[in-house]
C-alpha cells in the first residue's frame, strides 16, 4: 500500500516537472491595439472579455448555462431524498440580525450595478449573480425556514428559472425570424460608453445575473433546509 502511494506521488512529480519544463515553449504574442479597436467597432463593448463570451463565443456560454441549470436541478432533486434535520435553529445574534439586512440590500444593489455595466467595466452576469446569491444566503442564515419560504416565495423560483432559460433560448433564435443569422447581435449597437448600448449584451448579462442568483440561492436554501445553519 505504501509502495503504491509512493509510486503515484513520484510519477505525478515527474509529470508535473515535464509540464513545467514544456512551459518554456509557449510563445508570447502581443495583441495590437488595432485588434481591440476592431472588437469595439463590431460589438460596441468596451470590456473585450464580455465581447468575447457574450458575442463571439455565445454558443459556448449558452451551453454553460444549461450545465448550470442541470446541476441545480440535480441538487434540488437529490437533496429532497436526503433526510432533513428535525429542528431548524437560525443564528440568534442581535448584531447579525441587524446587519444582515444591510448586507442584503447592499449586495443586491451592487449586483444589479455590476450586471448592468458588464460591458463597460469589470463585472458581468456571472459575478453579479454570485454577489446577490451571497447576500440572500446571509439574510437566510438569521431567519426561520418558514419565514424565508413566506418572504421569498421559494416555490416560484424554479418556474422563474425555467422562464429565464426559455427566454435565453428565444433570444438566441429570434434573429432567424427577422432574417438574420441565429446567435447574431440583432439589436442596435447604440453609442459607445452608454449602458443601453452593445446590442443584446446587457440583456444577456441581466438574464445570466437572474439565473445565477436564483440558482445559487436555491442551492444555499436547500442546504440550509436539509442540513441546518452550522
Amino acid at each position, binding site marked *: *500500500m505504501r509502495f*503504491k*502511494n509512493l509510486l*503515484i*506521488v513520484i510519477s*505525478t*512529480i515527474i*509529470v*508535473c516537472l515535464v*509540464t*513545467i519544463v514544456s*512551459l518554456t515553449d*509557449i510563445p*508570447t*504574442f*502581443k*495583441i495590437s*491595439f488595432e485588434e*481591440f479597436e476592431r*472588437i*469595439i467597432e463590431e460589438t460596441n463593448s*468596451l*470590456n*473585450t*472579455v*464580455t*465581447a*468575447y*463570451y457574450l458575442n463571439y*463565443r455565445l454558443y*459556448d*456560454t449558452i451551453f*454553460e448555462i444549461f*450545465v*448550470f441549470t442541470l*446541476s*441545480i436541478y*440535480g*441538487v434540488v432533486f*437529490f*437533496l429532497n*431524498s*436526503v*433526510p432533513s434535520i428535525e429542528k431548524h435553529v437560525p443564528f440568534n445574534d442581535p448584531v447579525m440580525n441587524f446587519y444582515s439586512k444591510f448586507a442584503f440590500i447592499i449586495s443586491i444593489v451592487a449586483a444589479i450595478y455590476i450586471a448592468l455595466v458588464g460591458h463597460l*467595466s*469589470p463585472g*458581468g452576469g*456571472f459575478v453579479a*449573480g*454570485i454577489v446577490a446569491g451571497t447576500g440572500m444566503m446571509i439574510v437566510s442564515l438569521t431567519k426561520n425556514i418558514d419565514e424565508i419560504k413566506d418572504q421569498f416565495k421559494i416555490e416560484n423560483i424554479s418556474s422563474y428559472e425555467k422562464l429565464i432559460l426559455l427566454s435565453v433560448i428565444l433570444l438566441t433564435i429570434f434573429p432567424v425570424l427577422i432574417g438574420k443569422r441565429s446567435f447574431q447581435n440583432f439589436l442596435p449597437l447604440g453609442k*459607445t*460608453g452608454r449602458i443601453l448600448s452593445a446590442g443584446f449584451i446587457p440583456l444577456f448579462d441581466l438574464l445570466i445575473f437572474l439565473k*445565477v442568483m436564483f*440558482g*445559487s440561492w436555491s*442551492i444555499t436554501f436547500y*442546504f440550509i433546509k436539509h*442540513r441546518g445553519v452550522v
Partner: protein
Amino acid sequence: MIILICSILITFIGFIGTILKKNLILKMLSVGVMNTGVITFFVGLSYRSGKAAPIIDKLLKNQQDLADPIPQAVIITSIVIGFAVLTFSLVYIMLLTSRRSTMDVKRIEGETDES
C-alpha cells in the same frame, strides 16, 4: 511565468489529493483545488501578453500592454459552473453517506485488501 508554474503546482497537488485521500469530502475538496489551479493557469496565460486588464478606456488613446482577452473569456464561465458541479457532487456524497453511513471509499466499495 511564476504564475504558470504555481498554477501547475496547485493543479498537481489537487491531483495527488484526489488519488490518495480516502475520505470522499476531502477528495471533492481536492477537485476544487484542481479547478482553482486550472483557472489560475488560464489567467496567467493571458497575463503573459500584457499587464493591464483588457478594458478599453475611450479617454486614453492607444493604450499599450493590454492582456489577451480570449483565455479569460474561455475560463470566466467555468468558475460558476465549477461551483455548481462541486455542490452537486457534495449532495451525491451526502446521499451516499446517509445510505452507507461512512465516507471512506474503501469501506463503501467493500474492499479490505492491504497489498
